[in-house]
C-alpha cells in the first residue's frame, strides 16, 4: 500500500506538469486551431529566467514574477511576429512555424542563459513528509496546489467573465464570434499570452524538483501534446485529466512493470483509448462541413 501511494505521488507530481503543458496546448488550440509545439519552451523560460535572475541577486519570488511576465511577453511576441502574419495559412503550416519558434527559443536560451542544468530552492524545504508510509516532498504538494489554482482560475474566467465567454465563443465558432463583434485577433493573442504564463508558472513550480536546462521543452511538449490528445483536444478538463493519467501511467509502469518501457505504457494506453474513443476521453465528434 505504501508502495502504491509512493508511485501515485510520483505520478501525480510529474502528471501535474504534463497537465499544465496540456492546458497550454488546449487554450491556444481552442482560440486558433494551432498546435503550439513551443509550449514546452514556455516552461523552460519560466524556470531558467527565475534561476538566472536569482543568481543575479534578485529574491526568488520577485525573480519568479519577472520570469512569468517575461515569458508572457514572449508568448505575445510569438503570436504577433510569427502566427498573426501567417493568418489564414493551413494548420500544418502554423504547426511548423511553432516548431521553428521552439528551435529559435532553445537557441536563444542556450546563449542568454547557458547549457547546464539548474535548480531552485524548495519553497518549504526538502525534508519529505510521510503519508501512510510514502514519503512526499512538500514541493510536490506545491505543484499540485498550483495546478489546482490555475485550473480553478481558468474555470472562473471562462464561466464568470464576459471576456471569458468571448474566448469560448471564439473557440466554438470563429466566424460567428467575429460577426457578433468579438475581436477574435485579440482573443487569440490573449490565449497565447495566458498559455505562456501558465507554462512559465509550471516551470517555476517544478524546477526545484525536476531541475531545468535550456532543452527541457521538447520532451515536455511531446508529453503534454500526448496528454492533451488523450483528454480530447480543446477540452480543458480533458487536458488536466490527460496529463495526470499520463504521469500516473509512467509511474505505475516504472514501479510495477518495467522501468525500461515505462514511457511505452503511456503511449500504448493512449493508442488503446484513441482506438476505443477516437476523440479522446472528453472530446466530442466534430462534424465536418462539406
Amino acid at each position, binding site marked *: 500500500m505504501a508502495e502504491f501511494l*509512493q508511485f501515485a*505521488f510520483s505520478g501525480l507530481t510529474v502528471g501535474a506538469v504534463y497537465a499544465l503543458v496540456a492546458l497550454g496546448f488546449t487554450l491556444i488550440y481552442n482560440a486558433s486551431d494551432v498546435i503550439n509545439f513551443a509550449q514546452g519552451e514556455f516552461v523552460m523560460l519560466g524556470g531558467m529566467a527565475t534561476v538566472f535572475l536569482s543568481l543575479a541577486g534578485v529574491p526568488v519570488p520577485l525573480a519568479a514574477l519577472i520570469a512569468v511576465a517575461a515569458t508572457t511577453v514572449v508568448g505575445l511576441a510569438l503570436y504577433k511576429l510569427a502566427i498573426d502574419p501567417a493568418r489564414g495559412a493551413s494548420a500544418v503550416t502554423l504547426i511548423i512555424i511553432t516548431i521553428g519558434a521552439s528551435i529559435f527559443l532553445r537557441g536563444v536560451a542556450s546563449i542568454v542563459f547557458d547549457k547546464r*542544468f539548474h535548480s531552485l530552492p524548495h519553497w518549504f524545504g526538502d525534508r519529505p513528509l510521510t503519508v501512510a508510509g510514502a514519503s512526499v516532498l512538500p514541493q510536490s504538494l506545491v505543484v499540485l496546489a498550483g495546478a489546482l489554482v490555475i485550473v480553478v482560475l481558468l474555470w472562473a474566467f471562462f464561466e464568470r467573465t464576459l471576456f471569458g465567454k468571448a474566448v469560448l465563443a471564439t473557440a466554438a465558432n470563429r466566424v460567428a464570434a467575429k460577426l457578433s463583434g468579438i475581436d477574435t485577433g485579440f482573443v487569440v493573442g490573449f490565449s497565447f499570452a495566458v498559455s505562456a504564463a501558465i507554462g512559465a508558472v509550471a516551470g517555476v513550480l517544478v524546477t526545484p524538483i*525536476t531541475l531545468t*536546462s535550456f532543452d527541457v521543452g521538447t*520532451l515536455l511538449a511531446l508529453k503534454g501534446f500526448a496528454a492533451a490528445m488523450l483528454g480530447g483536444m480543446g477540452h480543458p478538463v480533458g487536458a488536466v485529466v490527460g496529463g495526470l493519467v499520463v504521469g500516473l501511467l509512467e509511474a505505475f509502469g516504472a*514501479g510495477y512493470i518495467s522501468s525500461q518501457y515505462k514511457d511505452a505504457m503511456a503511449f500504448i494506453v493512449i493508442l488503446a483509448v484513441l482506438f476505443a474513443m477516437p476523440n479522446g476521453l472528453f472530446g466530442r465528434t466534430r462534424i465536418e462541413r462539406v
Partner: protein
Amino acid sequence: MAGWTRRVFAGAAAAALMAFGASAAQAQIKIGAVLSVTGPASFLGDPSKKTLEIYVEQINAAGGINGQRLQLIIYDDGGDANQARTFATRLIEDDKIVAMVGGSTTGTTMAMIPLFEEARIPFISLGGAIQIIDPVRAYTFKTPHTDRMACEKIFQDLQRRRLTNIAMISGTDGFGASMHDQCVAVAPRYGVTIAHTERYGPRDSDMTPQLTNIRNRQGVQAVVNAGFGQGPAIVTRNYAQLQVPHPLYQSHGVASKQFIDLAGDAANGVRLPASALLVASMLPDSDPQKSVVVNYARTFEQKTGQPVSTFGGHAYDGLMILVEAIKKAGADPRKIRDAIEATRGFMGTAGVVNMSATDHMGLDLTAFRMLEIRNRDWTIVPEGGS
C-alpha cells in the same frame, strides 16, 4: 534581380579571397573537432568546446607549434550520429585537417571512426565506452577512462567494505547502457552479485518508483547509479527522499562540482570514482598530477565562470597529447599518429597516459580516485593497501 545575384557573387568571391589571403599569410596547422555542443549530450560537448577554444588561443598567443599557428575548426553534431559523420567528412575532405579531437559520445565516435581510418587521419575521441579502442584501430585513440574501469573501481571499494549484493539503476542513454553492461561483465571477478536492475530515461525527472522497488528488495547492500547529466542528481535526491539505507555509488558520469550543487545535502555520503581533476586543490603537493589539474581547473573556471568538469578535462588531455605529437612529428597525419601512439608518461587531467600499439587509451585504474561527498564537498577515500 540581376543586381541582386551580382551582389551575392561579389560577396562570395570577396569571402573566398579573404579566406585564401588568411591562409597564405601564415602557415597553419588545421585540427578539427566534432562535438555534441547542443542536444542531449551538450554537457559533454559544451565544456569540451570551451576548453579547446581557450587552449588553442593560448598556444597561438605563445607562438603556435613549431612556429605555425593552430587553426581549430569545431562543428556541433547535436548528438546525432549521422550529423557527426557529415561533419567528419567535411573536416577531412573540405577543411583538410591533419588530426581531430572529439566525438563527444560513443555513438557519434563509432559513426566517425571508419572515415578517419580510411583517410588515415588521427582521431582522439572523447567518448567513454571501451569499444572505441577495443579492438585497437590504427588511427583511433581516446582520452577518458572506460566505463569498465569505473565499475572495477567501484567494485574494489565494495570489496573493501565487504558488500557483495548490489542493485543498479542505469540511464537508458548510451553512457548508462554501456556502463551497465560493463559492470555486469566484471561483477563476478569481484564477487559482486547484481541482484536488481532498474532503468530511467535520460530526461526523466522523477525516479522514486524505481528506487522504491530497490528499497523494498531484500538483500541489497549497496546501489550503483550508472548515468550522466541531470539523472544522477535526481536519483541522489530521490534516494534521500525515500531514505534508502544502503550506500549509494555514482559513476564518473558525475563530472563536476555542479552535481553537489544540484543534489544538495542529499549527496552527503555518496561515493564515486573520479579523476583527480575534481579534487585538484586537495591533492598533496607531492602528487605529480597536482600542477596539471590545478592549472587546468583555474584556467577553465577563470575564462568561463563555470565549475570545471572532467568532460572538459578529457578535451584538454586530447589536445595536449596531439600538440605534443605535432611538436615531434610535424603536420603529417601519419607521423602524428605514430607520435600519439608513442606517448609515454604524459600527465593529463585524467591521469598518466602511456599509449602503446595495443593500448590506445593508456590509462590504468590508478587514474581514478575514490571520492566521498561530505558536507557538500569532495573528500578522498583512503585506499589502504590496494
